[in-house]
């Protein structure tokens, strides 16, 4: 691990001022960053510990909008009554990740910015366009069992590993950011970037930008929402495919729906094609399957990850069927 300094500012403005250089990283729960530093993937010269900043809150405003501080621990988020009752998909997604000990440490802000599990990204002895732009991507021909079928580019097929971010994407969350220009808001869907020709740029955040909070819009039908995650052991492992969904049914017609996929793309994948196919349509498994297939028509599976297409399709059908049965 490279030598580095450590600061623990008490004000966001101080943190942002410290963090504008590219060699600086924010430290919160440390569950991802500390690991990557041990692997030599991250080599900051200064860590700015943001745990003293006042961002450990979950609150509801008069309009029913729920604001989650970026420093809220995953365990606290999943256990919060407001989240469990109004956004069960989010509580379920958080609980589906990592282990109890890690959820006690990991924060909302850190979870949103966790890095891919692509083995080439984590192995500093190998080329990786994300880690070393222009060095190449061995994953297309190499180990890509858990890499992207949607949204990838020739340069990068890494997947975003977060569960929480999939739920937040489905919920149309809005991220509060503070950077050198001051505080502002970014829809989560606009926070993440597809890799294109510059996969090293994963977000639209400016250098030194600090995530301070996440807003959940009032979405009454999110009370009926679900997160389903498939993985290779019963707990404590990353998804090989996941679905976050909320469904609003009126009579036998889909009035509204939110659908996002995890572990299939470089970003949490909002399934807008499937949503469009579903809205106004019938509430049955054929329609659900057709919608999933419409979304996945754009999939470009590789040699070893084609299984994700039927996996996601089946997860979508099951999740929507369960939500429909309960409405």
């Amino acid at each position, binding site marked *: *691990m490279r*030598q*580095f*300094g*450590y600061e*623990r500012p008490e004000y966001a403005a101080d943190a942002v001022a410290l963090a504008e250089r590219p060699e600086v990283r924010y*430290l919160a*729960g*440390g*569950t991802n960053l*500390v*690991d990557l*530093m*041990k692997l030599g993937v991250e080599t900051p010269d200064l*860590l700015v*510990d943001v*745990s003293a900043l006042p961002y450990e809150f979950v609150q509801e405003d008069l309009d029913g909008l729920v604001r989650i501080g970026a420093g809220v*621990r995953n365990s606290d988020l999943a256990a919060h009554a407001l989240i469990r009752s109004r956004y069960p998909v989010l509580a379920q997604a958080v609980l589906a990740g*990592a*282990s*109890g*000990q*890690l959820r*006690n*440490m990991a924060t909302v802000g850190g979870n949103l910015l966790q890095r891919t599990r692509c083995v080439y990204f984590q192995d500093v002895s190998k080329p990786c366009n994300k880690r070393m732009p222009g060095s190449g991507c061995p994953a297309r021909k190499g180990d890509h069992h858990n890499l992207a079928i949607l949204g990838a580019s020739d340069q990068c097929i890494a997947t975003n590993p977060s569960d929480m971010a999939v739920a937040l994407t489905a919920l149309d969350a809005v991220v509060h950011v503070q950077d050198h220009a001051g505080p502002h808001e970014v829809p989560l869907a606009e926070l993440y970037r597809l890799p294109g020709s510059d996969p090293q740029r994963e977000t639209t955040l400016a250098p030194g930008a600090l995530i301070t909070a996440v807003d959940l819009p009032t979405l009454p039908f999110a009370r009926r929402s679900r997160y389903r995650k498939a993985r290779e052991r*019963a*707990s*404590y492992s990353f998804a090989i495919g996941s679905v976050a969904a909320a469904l609003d049914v009126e009579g036998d017609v889909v009035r509204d729906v939110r659908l996002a996929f995890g572990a299939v793309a470089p970003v949490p994948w909002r399934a807008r094609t499937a949503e469009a196919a579903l809205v106004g349509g019938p509430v049955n498994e054929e329609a659900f399957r057709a919608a999933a297939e419409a979304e996945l028509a754009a999939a470009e599976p590789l040699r070893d990850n084609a299984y994700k297409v039927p996996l996601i399709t089946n997860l979508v059908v099951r999740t929507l069927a369960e939500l429909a049965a309960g409405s």
Partner: protein
Amino acid sequence: MRLTFDVNGVGQQADDVWPGESLLYVLRERMGLPGTKNACEQGECGSCSVYLDGTLVCACLVAAPQAQGRAVRTVEGLATDSAGGLDHIQQAFVETGAVQCGFCTPGLIMATDDLLANTPTPSDAEIREALAGNLCRCTGYEKILDAVRLAASRRTEVTP
């Protein structure tokens, strides 16, 4: 840098700590408390589970400076209140044969302590869910379940 924090109820100080050291390293190599185990040092196995201000965490992923001014409780601090040297969870692990090589044991005992503090009479499913962040390679977990059940039953006896 200098690190001052509380370990098992006693104020401690460590000098010349490098920020890249983990809380695990500080406990094991600077505090002389190797009971917290170093099986993966990547947050993947639970062997280094300790309480940090009362919250169960993996000490390997806590950067040393993050422990500044905080209270840490390790397996060595678990039995300090009991006269017999072992607390009821430790005793149950010994009696049920839940210990083989024992490398996962301190972490599992800490996780069990955390479980029983919140859920005094857990179901088997609750035990499994709560201990899913602690890997054991020797036992197949059956006797660990026995140990947690036994500890829970005794805990219920002593604190109705």
